């Protein structure tokens, strides 16, 4: 069949000729409009009434009804005091599974759920009691928790959520937006070196060369074995006459290049992970 020359062209021409007489699909937009799908939600925005005031009464029903907690409501009260609605404690998992049950007719396991390690909650209870279980003191609670546990385990965040009434999602958001709060224990040790002009004049260049030689990497970077991170830190003028060096965040004084290289090599030997490099 396909060996006949011109057959494909003839078939194509026949196809386009049929298309010529078929009904057209164009929708003449301003005159004709397709019905909008009932599932279409349009664009989320706050509406204003005819006096220019927001129609939103801050009833928080939208935030409560949102099954994936993507709506986060805050507002001010009539006396212009900041007022945030802290929702009922931790409904996230329950409501998502309820929703799945309603839609599919059978319970659906959550593949995103991972079991978290239980921790000793006694220090956290003390912190919470000291902070009066107040969600508005969340940054302080989180900082003190990190100081007590070294990082923020999931179990502590869940417990904070239960105790204070703040949503887990909000606590997570607060914690993840603060650079000094971390969710995993630090596995890599870090040496920081300031690169400002004052520190460089005071001998920072030699320290940096020694550090890079010992670490086998450029200054902002991690050694190939993953044991040591060389970080660029800032002395903020706190180190007159002496290059500013930190080891795991603790400032060090009077380090010579040889001593620093020795220190770096020792750290690498102690914390080298066999899986890397």
């Amino acid at each position, binding site marked *: 069949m396909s060996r006949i020359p011109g057959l494909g*062209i003839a078939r*194509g*021409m026949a*196809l*386009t*000729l049929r*298309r*010529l007489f*078929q*009904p*057209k*699909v*164009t929708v*003449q937009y301003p005159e004709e409009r397709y019905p909008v799908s009932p599932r279409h939600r349009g664009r989320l925005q706050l509406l204003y009434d005819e006096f220019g005031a927001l129609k939103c009464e801050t009833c928080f029903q939208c935030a409560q009804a949102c099954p994936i907690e993507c709506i986060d409501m805050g507002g001010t009260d009539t006396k212009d005091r900041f007022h945030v609605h802290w929702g009922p404690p931790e409904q996230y998992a329950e409501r998502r599974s309820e929703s799945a049950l309603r839609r599919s007719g059978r319970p659906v396991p959550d593949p995103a759920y991972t079991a978290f390690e239980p921790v000793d909650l006694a220090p956290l209870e003390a912190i919470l009691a000291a902070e009066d279980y107040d969600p508005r003191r969340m940054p302080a609670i989180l900082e003190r928790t990190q100081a007590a546990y070294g990082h923020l385990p999931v179990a502590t965040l869940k417990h904070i959520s239960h105790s204070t009434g703040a949503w887990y999602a909000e606590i997570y958001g607060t914690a993840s937006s603060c650079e000094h709060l971390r969710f995993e224990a630090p596995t890599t040790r870090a040496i920081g070196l300031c690169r400002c002009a004052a520190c460089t004049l005071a001998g920072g260049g030699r320290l940096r060369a020694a550090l890079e030689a010992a670490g086998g990497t450029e200054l902002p970077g991690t050694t190939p074995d993953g044991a040591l991170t060389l970080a660029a830190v800032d002395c903020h003028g706190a180190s007159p006459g002496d290059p500013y060096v930190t080891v795991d965040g603790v400032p060090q004084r009077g380090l010579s290049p040889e001593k620093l290289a020795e220190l770096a090599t020792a750290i690498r030997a102690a914390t080298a992970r066999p899986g890397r490099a």
Partner: protein
Amino acid sequence: MSVVARSWGHLTPAGKVVVPLLGIVLALGLVAFLGIVTGILPAIGDTVVLTGRRNVGIVRFLVAATAALLASVPIAFINIYLEMKLLAWIALRRGPNRVGPFGTLQSVAHGFKVLAKEDFTPTGADRAVFTIAPVVTFLSVVLAFMVVPFAPGIVGVDMNIAVLFFFAIGGLTVVGLLAGGWASFNKYSLLGGLRSAAQIISYEIPLTLSVVGVVMLAGTMSLHGIVEAQAGHFWNWFVFQQPLGFLVFFLAGTAEGNRTPFDLTEADSEIVAGFATEYSGMRYGFFYFAEYVNLFILSAVTAILFFGGWSAPVEIHQLAAWLGVAVPSFAIDPSQLGIGLLFLLALGPALGTVLCAIPVALLRTDWSLRRALAVGFVLFNVVAGGLVIAWAYLASEVVAGLFWFLGKTFFFVFVFVWMRATLPRVRIDQLMGFAWKWLLPASLFNIFATAAAIVLVNR
């Protein structure tokens, strides 16, 4: 603001066209009236007519050239509209339908848009050549128009070497394209121009050779004579004696007219319009104007050479004689009617409207009389228009010829558009290989086969 300016501002766009025209007509009428009254016009009238008679060739040429130039504008607009509409329909779209009834004025709007755009000449361009290149392209196409016979007697210049003239003038197109590419001071334009020159010159050869068979059969190179050689029923058309010649001519003509699948010259989806990269405004428009007129002329020449030109598929008088019925003669001379003509013109429309309105009013009693009359008026116009066209078709062989010629021509325009909607563009090496390895041998074989057949039949 003066009264004139204010009145001018109140005019609709159509009025702004009509009012100056009315002024011109009035001025001409005044001049004619004064000339007749003072006796100047009758005095010089004889001399003018005599001079025209003595130089009838020149007068005829001037009239034909003006007519060709004027006719090219609506023809290009119709072709552009057809192309837009048919491409849209094949793509299941609706096509232009906003400007004018069914979007028929869309191409006019495009023309005005192109006219309103800036006409830009790039720095370093050869200004004179850059300006003249679109004119050369357009003129070569319009000159080819001069030898196309539309109907018996309706031809610009009835040359005895019309076929040769057509190909010679058609070959001038490439000069315009090459000049445009070269003068643009742009290496891509130059490459585009060279490429289009290579394509068009390559396809010129099989295009010309494929017609040799037709010329041998007809015994003349006059397009008028070639059409007359195909007179009679449709089996006299040369397409049935020269199928290979027709195929080669049509394919080579597709390439010659820069139509898909051989539109390597323009290739709008791949290269930036080749030689026309630096062109803008109406100079750019002239290239495309020429292309669409060329599309019409290629279709027309295909219809003339292979499909009997203006001759009907079936000779109605011969058919009637064979069936034993007489075709009524409608050769009415309106001037013979005398005073009856006046009555016909004055009362015919009114009587016809009433006659057509009566059945409407009887059938739709719920309509008001005004409405029935309005519908009757429309009905009368349709009937009268149909009658006039039918009368013109039967009474005048020019109208009948024009009908069949334009019908065949626009059928081929449709085929060109249809091909554009269907076929993908070929590569440049495929394009060249097709011309030299297939079309050229095929056209040569066609010449030898035709010559052998003529010798065998005549012996």
